[in-house]
């Protein structure tokens, strides 16, 4: 009896699963693998919004239909790889964009390589990802670009002598913390406090007191939104005597300013892109994207959305270009097209090296001044003067 | 005055249902065997309550000894102490002249002491056969062939009348059958001493009448010494050669059943102390 029920159920699944892969020539099939649920859901969702915008624009511009398939990897490594199996193996997409978190992108990019499908991510900065030298792997941002902006600004723009680094134990933050520490030490800046905390930490006072007792000029927090909120609130209570507060990424964003109000003022942060930070050549593109984004989603785009947008845009262009060159959309031609890319974008110049890493990527270091992000480093992208010493908890 | 049982008086019921004292006679032969179990000054305190207070007694090989006493007299606690389920506060217990206090229940079982529980506790997920087999496998130390174990199990099942039910699961058995299973399981460990905790409770008079010869046969055929707790006095009178009476944790009587019912302290314990309230 029960056995029959099971068999029946299985048969239903099997039939439901049977979807013969049709091979239509016309439309470009673009796959997206990104976390829509689970720990990284927020970032994945923004990423996908950016990609959707890019698809809309591309369809309008080239009058080529794009079949977009979005699969949720549930912030889980196994599901990430499985999503690629589905996109590349079943839906036979021409390329995949998305991917957030090095631990998800790792298995996913491996899977894409197995299917010889170009994989273009905007959310994984771990060095080891490109060390594998996968031929289908491309990304817009990577670790050294972030670290250089931070250590450079701390040494040159702020002139801090002693820096306390607190970092979230998650992989990306742990990696950048180590990188920045090495660069700072090489530049002769002391790092007396270098400590890892776990996600979910809410009482930062004991950590901040260590920074205080070590007499640091600057506090560098390599973390995520909750960590910034926690450290800034606790630093305010302790009246922490440092001269600058630097965050890694995701700080100073509109959401950050919205949630923290006056206490978002004067923070330093690295960003790939924020409203108004585009180089001159790409100002127009920036404005158009922001306008279209606001129109479509009724909110401001974050840098993650921008990254998603750019990855979608350049990937589609590459597929089309490769396809025009050869008559069909082949992975080889798409790769070639991507490798020959060299453009100015709202996040700066984009070109890839042979490992798929961005050749020219450097993040900018900005300071939030009156709720706006003012780039202060590197000097060639400088938008305004640095306010130093100044900390968010000193703001009125 | 009216009696509910077909107009019979209580005495009629007793006489009709139970073998007369004469038939019990063979059972009351004095046991002459060596001492199998001995408790010396055994005590158990729970906080301020003395559940078992300095009890000493012996059980000889081949005896059937009853333990009676009103509710809360400490009978079950005494059993738990003897069988290693509770640590004693003070005193000593010897089994075949070796001290056994502090040994784990499974070790005691290997030494030859098995017990049943007041509320039957069969293993519900296992068949009757498996219940008994588990006891046969683990009850004695040392490897035995599967053949030997199986023949043991079959013998026990036959002896306890459970053979036709071997494939059933305990929840489908009737209460008397489950009580038998409880005993069968203990028996399958091949004990020298069997501690029976109210095996007759919950059975109706007819079922009790059927159970008594069974207990006697365990003693006779399987040469098992038995120490049994019972609430049902009549039953224990018919089967035991000697009874121990507990009240308020103390041993107030140790002797032949026929003497117990004449003993003033026993009567007081059972019927209440005050003749004039």
């Amino acid at each position, binding site marked *: 009896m029960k056995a029959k029920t099971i068999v029946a159920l299985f048969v239903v699944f099997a039939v439901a699963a049977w979807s013969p892969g049709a091979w239509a020539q016309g439309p470009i099939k673009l796959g997206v693998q990104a976390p829509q649920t689970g720990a990284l859901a927020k970032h994945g*969702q923004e990423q996908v919004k950016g990609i959707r915008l890019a698809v809309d624009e591309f369809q309008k511009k080239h009058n080529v239909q794009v079949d977009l398939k979005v699969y949720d990897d549930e912030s889980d490594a196994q599901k990430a790889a499985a999503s690629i199996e589905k996109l590349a193996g079943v839906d036979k997409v021409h390329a995949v964009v998305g991917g957030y978190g090095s631990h998800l992108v790792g298995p996913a990019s491996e899977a894409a390589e197995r299917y010889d499908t170009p994989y273009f991510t905007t959310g994984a900065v771990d060095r080891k990802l490109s060390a594998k030298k996968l031929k289908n792997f491309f990304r817009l941002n990577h670790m050294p670009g972030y670290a250089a902006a931070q250590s450079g600004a701390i040494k040159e723009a702020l002139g801090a002598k002693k820096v306390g680094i607190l970092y979230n134990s998650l992989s990306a933050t742990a990696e950048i913390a180590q990188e920045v520490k090495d660069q700072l030490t090489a530049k002769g800046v002391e790092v007396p406090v270098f*400590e890892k905390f*776990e996600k979910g930490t*809410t*009482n930062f006072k*004991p*950590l901040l007191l260590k920074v205080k007792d070590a007499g640091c000029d600057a506090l560098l927090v390599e973390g995520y939104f909750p960590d910034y909120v926690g450290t800034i609130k606790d630093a305010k209570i302790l009246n922490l005597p440092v001269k600058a507060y630097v965050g890694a990424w995701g700080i100073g964003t509109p959401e950050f300013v919205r949630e923290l109000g006056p206490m978002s003022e004067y923070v330093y942060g690295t960003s790939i892109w924020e409203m108004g930070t585009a180089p001159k050549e790409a100002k127009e593109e920036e404005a158009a994207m922001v306008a279209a984004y606001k129109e479509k989603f009724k909110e401001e785009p974050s840098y993650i959305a921008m990254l998603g947008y750019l990855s979608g845009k350049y990937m589609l262009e590459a597929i089309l270009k490769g396809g025009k060159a050869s008559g069909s959309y082949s992975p080889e031609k798409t790769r070639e097209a991507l490798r020959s890319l060299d453009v100015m974008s709202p996040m700066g110049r984009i070109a890839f090296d042979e490992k798929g890493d961005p050749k020219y990527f450097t993040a900018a270091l900005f300071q939030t001044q009156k709720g706006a992000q003012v780039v202060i480093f590197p000097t060639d992208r400088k938008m305004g003067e640095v306010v130093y010493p100044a900390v968010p908890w000193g703001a009125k | 005055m009216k009696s509910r049982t077909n107009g019979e008086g209580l005495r009629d019921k007793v006489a009709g249902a139970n073998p007369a004292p004469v038939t019990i006679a063979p059972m009351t032969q004095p046991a002459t065997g060596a001492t199998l179990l001995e408790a010396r000054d055994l005590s158990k305190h729970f906080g301020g309550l003395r559940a078992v207070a300095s009890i000493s007694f012996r059980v000889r090989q081949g005896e059937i000894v009853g333990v009676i006493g009103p509710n809360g007299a400490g009978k079950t606690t005494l059993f738990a102490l003897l069988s290693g389920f509770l640590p004693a506060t003070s005193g000593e217990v010897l089994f075949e002249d070796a001290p056994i206090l502090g040994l784990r229940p499974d070790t005691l079982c290997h030494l030859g002491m098995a017990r049943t529980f007041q509320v039957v506790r069969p293993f519900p997920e296992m068949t009757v056969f498996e219940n008994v087999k588990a006891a046969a496998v683990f009850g004695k130390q040392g490897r035995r062939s599967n053949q030997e174990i199986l023949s043991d199990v079959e013998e026990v099942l036959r002896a306890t009348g459970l053979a036709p039910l071997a494939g059933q699961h305990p929840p489908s058995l009737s209460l008397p059958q489950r009580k038998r299973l409880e005993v069968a399981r203990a028996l399958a460990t091949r004990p020298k001493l069997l501690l029976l905790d109210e095996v007759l409770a919950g059975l109706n008079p007819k079922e009790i009448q059927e159970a008594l010869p069974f207990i006697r046969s365990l003693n006779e055929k399987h040469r098992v010494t038995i120490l049994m707790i019972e609430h049902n006095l009549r039953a224990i009178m018919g089967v035991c050669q000697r009874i121990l009476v507990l009240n308020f944790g103390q041993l107030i009587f140790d002797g032949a059943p026929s003497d117990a019912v004449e003993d003033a302290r026993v009567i007081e314990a059972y019927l209440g102390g005050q003749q004039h309230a």
Partner: protein
Amino acid sequence: MISATSVVQSLLSGMAEGVNYSLYCLGLAFVFGIVRIINLAHGEFLVLGGYIAYWLLVKWGVNPLLALPLAAAMAGVAAFVSYRVFLQRIRTSSELNTLILTFGLGIFLANLYLQLWTADIRNIGVDWMEQPLSFFGIYVSVGEILTILISLAVVFGLYFFLTRSRTGMAIRVTAIDRDAAALAGINVERVDLVAFTIGGLLAGVGGPLLGMLAHISPGAGLHITVKAFILTVLAGVGSIPGLLVAGMILGVGEALTVTFINASYRELFGFALFIAILVIRPSGLFGRRL
């Protein structure tokens, strides 16, 4: 080197954190002690309270402290409905079943919040509550003092409710001896429902505080549930004042681990303590007394 003032400050921060921990776990401990259900959806009830306060603040500028009653009430309603629809039906089955059931409810609620309120991380910030005060070189904020007072008030309020009020006493005696309570005329089934609902209310009070002191997000509940469970075991089932002490031990222990060892061993401290207590003294530090 670490200065003496810093050690004291760290210690105090741990105590403050600990008091709030006890508030976060109060509902779980209460329900476990009375109804014998380990409510794995506890954290989600708490997060619900947090969202209520957040939206009241963002939409109408309601001070989160004033939002406490509504936050508690909504979480209480969620608990009430969960109990009536699901838990009541398996009240007499095994503990494992209630564990799985509440776990399922937790997943459901967390994903429901995700759909309703997006994955954004929310922080409840009120400027005047974030102002620091200084005493002899030791700093605290107005909000911290307030939240500690609220936590203490709720913990002691519950304690007095249980020991002084008629309903509270009924709940308490039902937990001690269910039959005796029924024989005294107490509707013990209703007590279960009421107690579970109160557990939800208590969780709801914790939400706005969590949002003020840290942050809330749809998935934040599980972490709270785990912390709450550690504390419940640490304190010993049924001991409400014991929760405060256990909270402090955990909070202070975590803070001092950071100060003297390393921040990355903070969580390890909690779990090591949890296992040690389970193994050495399964009844917890304060045994079973209501």
